[in-house]
């Protein structure tokens, strides 16, 4: 079953409208909450008047920050960034003295209908004393800038360095130095389902039951317990069907905590579902780094060193996962697929009056890949070399694995040249160059972009966790064989579209030798799912799937012992293959796993062995996994309109072993489109005063079906030695590598005009402007 493109088990209910998303949950007596948010990016809260809201018909309760003091703790921040200047600023469910970003929750109103809650929320009177605001890292770090948090002068959340080798010497000895300022701009995850929660608290049983659009139900349960002082074993968090997340549904949010408070304070169940505008302003936003980097290279294109500064915009607060992104992902992954021996980086996180940033598909790795892939192309251009050849020369060779990078990571396995070779072959690179030359003679601008990547996944084993300021994120699984031989599998990951109900069943079916229809996969409910850390960071299959594999192995081991007794053989002589235990050399002396299960549970009479056929296993990975690949595209740029058309897009990816190739394809497509979106369409804009300008889908250009190309995919497989399945995961790869693939192509197209670099997104306006300026600089010629 592993390796089969099975149709998904999730689909029948989702296709017929029978999925259960959080906003679909109905409870008797359900109330609705509306959140009052700051319209100012930075202000003192002078007074909050809840009375008009409380008097509105249908209103059950209304609360502001002062009402929560002493009853709710600030949201816990577990991670500590290396070089963090002070204890992270408290994140309160409802702001008390000050608001620091437009959209920060200030009050919550609970009513018996959506309309009453919404109407009453507008009646809450908040008096603000506006303060000056800063939105860019440059403005926030400048002399005299308003300080967001008292303990963080200059708005510096953390500052740290990453050093490896001897960069200074490498730069002294370089034949050529190439430098570039690059921006990896801010985006929103924009999962199609806005955030929502339903919280029910029974004061007589002391039990809190909550449905959350979360990627991490156990984490959410733990946080709720700490926030409200509730016994953790009386808190139940359920992630029902969740409509996408891409990292943004990891944190427990202040507004969600405020809604939970409503349920606890009133004893009545309450639902909150974000409007899209709210979701834009309050869900963690992605990326937003500025890098000043330079690489040292030899004349033959070998890159020896990279150094510079990378500054990340943290937004107004540090959330649970924010701190790791730059120092734990971007900086260590900057060497990408290349054997660059010397690294010297300064890394800063800066607070600004914008929505807090957090993980968004790739979480720090797209930034690293973008910087390095642009720099490689710039080196190639500087030296007059083919960018494909420069990559080949710099790749970590296939015989050097496990490979320790200058940044302290150990890449598990990979064949980067094979991926690149396949990508250029599929694209028809030589033919594409020929077409490009012909097109140039006709005054048309075709461009070819190639980008390679290594994706850090399988986050994060206990050995690596400390370096990123994180707790260890292992996984556990329970495999329970029932009397009829049917199997239920329980895992601690929490899929939200990735098809785990199908792929994990495939894994268990393979290892237990049972039909895949006989395996049910359960996750997302803390009441039954074993402890785990959820789905993000390309971890579910490498870490969760591996825990599942280990639990299956334990079941098979126990099955052998029981089968040995049933077959009256020595356990060492019992083999297991495709669902049958048999005596080596006498295959007719056999029992199926179904027979063994029935015996183990119902007809048990085996001294020295416990009844039942189930097992739990935990997997603490010894390392990250490192998927890799190369994407290549052919674009045409219209100099008169600035429009970019992607004519062909080829993706070659190595995610180790594939469990379900059709699902892997889907992950690549979806990630690539988000990457293309960053390169060409999406841009989350604040004005200098902290006003969010792109606050709805009318302004923020999530691409539509006619704006993205057809993708040609191919795979190579270098299994990972890090886990029992050999899988690396693939969820984020497309979003990591597509932006530089596209940007490299556009810059390549415009090279004849002398254009060397353009910041994303390459909207028609930007491209057209760049073309005009380039032509003017050259005296108006084409």
């Amino acid at each position, binding site marked *: 079953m592993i390796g089969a493109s099975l*149709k*998904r088990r*999730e*689909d*029948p209910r*989702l*296709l*017929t*409208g*029978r*999925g*259960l*998303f959080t*906003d*679909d949950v*109905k409870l008797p007596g359900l109330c609705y909450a509306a959140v009052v948010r700051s319209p100012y990016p930075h202000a003192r809260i002078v007074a909050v008047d809840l009375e008009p809201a409380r008097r509105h018909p249908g209103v059950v309760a209304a609360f502001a920050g002062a009402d929560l003091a002493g009853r709710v703790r600030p949201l816990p921040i577990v991670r500590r960034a290396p070089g963090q200047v002070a204890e992270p600023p408290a994140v309160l469910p409802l702001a008390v003295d000050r608001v620091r970003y437009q959209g920060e929750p200030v009050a919550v109103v609970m009513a018996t209908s*959506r*309309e009453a809650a919404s109407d009453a929320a507008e009646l809450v009177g908040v008096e603000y004393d506006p303060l000056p605001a800063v939105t860019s890292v440059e403005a926030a770090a400048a002399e005299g800038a308003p300080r967001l948090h008292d303990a963080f002068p200059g708005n510096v959340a953390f500052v740290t360095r990453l050093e490896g080798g001897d960069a200074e010497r490498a730069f002294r000895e370089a034949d050529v130095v190439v430098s570039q300022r690059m921006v990896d701009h801010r985006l929103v995850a*924009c*999962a*199609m*389902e*806005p955030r929502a929660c339903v919280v029910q608290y029974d004061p007589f049983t002391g039990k809190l039951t909550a449905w959350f659009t979360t990627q991490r139900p156990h984490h959410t349960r733990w946080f709720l317990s700490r926030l409200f002082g509730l016994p953790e074993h009386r808190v139940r968090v359920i992630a029902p*069907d*969740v*409509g*996408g997340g*891409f990292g943004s549904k990891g944190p427990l949010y202040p507004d969600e905590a405020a809604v939970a408070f409503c349920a606890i304070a009133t004893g009545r169940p309450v639902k909150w*579902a974000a*409007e*899209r*505008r709210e979701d834009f302003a309050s869900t963690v936003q992605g990326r937003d780094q500025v890098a000043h980097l330079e690489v040292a290279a030899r004349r033959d294109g070998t890159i020896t060193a990279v150094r510079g500064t990378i500054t990340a915009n943290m937004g107004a607060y540090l959330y649970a996962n924010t701190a790791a992104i730059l120092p734990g992902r971007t900086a260590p992954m900057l060497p990408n697929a290349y054997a660059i021996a010397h690294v010297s980086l300064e890394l800063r996180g800066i607070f600004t009056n914008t929505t807090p940033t957090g993980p968004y598909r790739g979480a720090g790795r797209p930034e690293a890949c973008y910087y390095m892939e642009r720099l490689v192309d710039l080196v190639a251009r500087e030296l007059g070399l083919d960018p494909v050849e420069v990559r080949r020369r710099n790749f970590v060779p296939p015989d050097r694995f496990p490979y320790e990078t200058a940044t302290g990571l150990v890449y598990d396995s990979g064949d980067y040249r094979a991926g690149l070779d396949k990508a250029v072959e599929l694209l028809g690179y030589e033919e594409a160059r020929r077409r490009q030359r012909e097109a140039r003679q006709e005054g048309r601008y075709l461009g070819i972009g190639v980008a390679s990547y290594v994706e850090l996944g399988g986050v994060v084993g206990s050995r690596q966790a400390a370096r990123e300021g994180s707790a260890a994120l292992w996984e556990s699984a329970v495999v329970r064989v029932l009397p009829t031989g049917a199997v239920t599998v329980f895992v601690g990951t929490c899929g*939200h*579209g*990735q*098809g785990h109900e199908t792929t994990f069943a495939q894994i268990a079916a393979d290892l237990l030798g049972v039909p895949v229809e006989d395996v049910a996969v359960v996750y997302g409910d803390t009441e039954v799912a074993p402890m785990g850390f959820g789905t993000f960071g390309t971890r579910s299959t490498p870490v969760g799937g591996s825990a599942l594999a280990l639990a299956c192995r334990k079941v098979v081991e126990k099955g052998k012992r029981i089968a040995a007794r049933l077959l009256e053989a020595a356990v060492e002589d019992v083999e297991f293959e495709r669902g049958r235990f048999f005596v080596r050399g006498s295959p007719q002396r056999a029992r199926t796993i179904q027979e063994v299960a029935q015996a183990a549970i119902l007809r048990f009479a085996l001294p020295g062995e416990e009844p039942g056929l189930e097992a739990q296993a935990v997997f603490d990975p010894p390392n990250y996994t490192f998927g890799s690949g190369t994407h290549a595209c052919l674009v045409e740029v219209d100099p008169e309109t600035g429009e970019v058309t992607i004519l062909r897009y080829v993706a070659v990816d190595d995610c180790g072993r594939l469990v379900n190739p*059709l*699902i892997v*394809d*889907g992950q*690549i*497509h*979806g*990630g*690539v*489109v*988000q990457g293309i979106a960053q390169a060409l369409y999406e841009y989350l804009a604040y004005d200098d005063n902290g006003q969010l300008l792109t606050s*709805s*889908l*009318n302004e923020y250009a*999530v691409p*539509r*079906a*006619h704006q*993205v190309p*057809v*993708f040609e995919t191919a795979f190579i497989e270098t299994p990972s030695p890090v886990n029992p399945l050999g899988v690396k995961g693939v969820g984020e790869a*497309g979003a990591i590598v597509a932006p530089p693939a596209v940007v490299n192509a556009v810059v390549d197209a415009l090279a004849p005009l002398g254009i060397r670099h353009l910041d994303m997104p390459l909207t028609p306006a930007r491209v057209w402007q760049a073309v005009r300026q380039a032509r003017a600089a050259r005296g108006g010629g084409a």
Partner: protein
Amino acid sequence: MVRIRVTVNGTAHEHDVEPRLLLVHYLRDVLGLTGTHIGCDTSSCGCCTVLLDDHAVKSCTILAVQADGGRITTIEGLAQDGRLHPLQEGFWEKHGLQCGFCTPGIIMTACELLRVNPDPTEEEIRHWLEGNLCRCTGYQHIVEAVRYAAERMRSQPAAGQAPRAAGGAA
């Protein structure tokens, strides 16, 4: 309050509603048909798409009172007698959905496409879906799913019938 009469998935309904009640809230909250989803507040995403008198409409942009007298089909009304509609089959075969949140809206939009254009090209499908956003799939498998359904419906015309209007109250 205003009285409306609508037929939804072949069943007649009669309710008194507030004039400002959106059709999508009527379907989800009053009728309990939660298969139609809400993904935005600017009519941009298409998650709420249903068929109103055979036309794909964004139910977040229609008031329930505007639908008075209309015949509505939601995602729940597509499968007949336990058999999936060819579009549902196509999306299943071709992995045309991941999280599933946008899927009902996309399928209902595709329903109208295949009614007016039984053999759409790739480009025609992509342009027809202009009003629908998907964040998970990258659209390619969606296009393949619609082409699969189109071919099934051309070769087996009975498979793609919308529910016949039934008499009687809810």
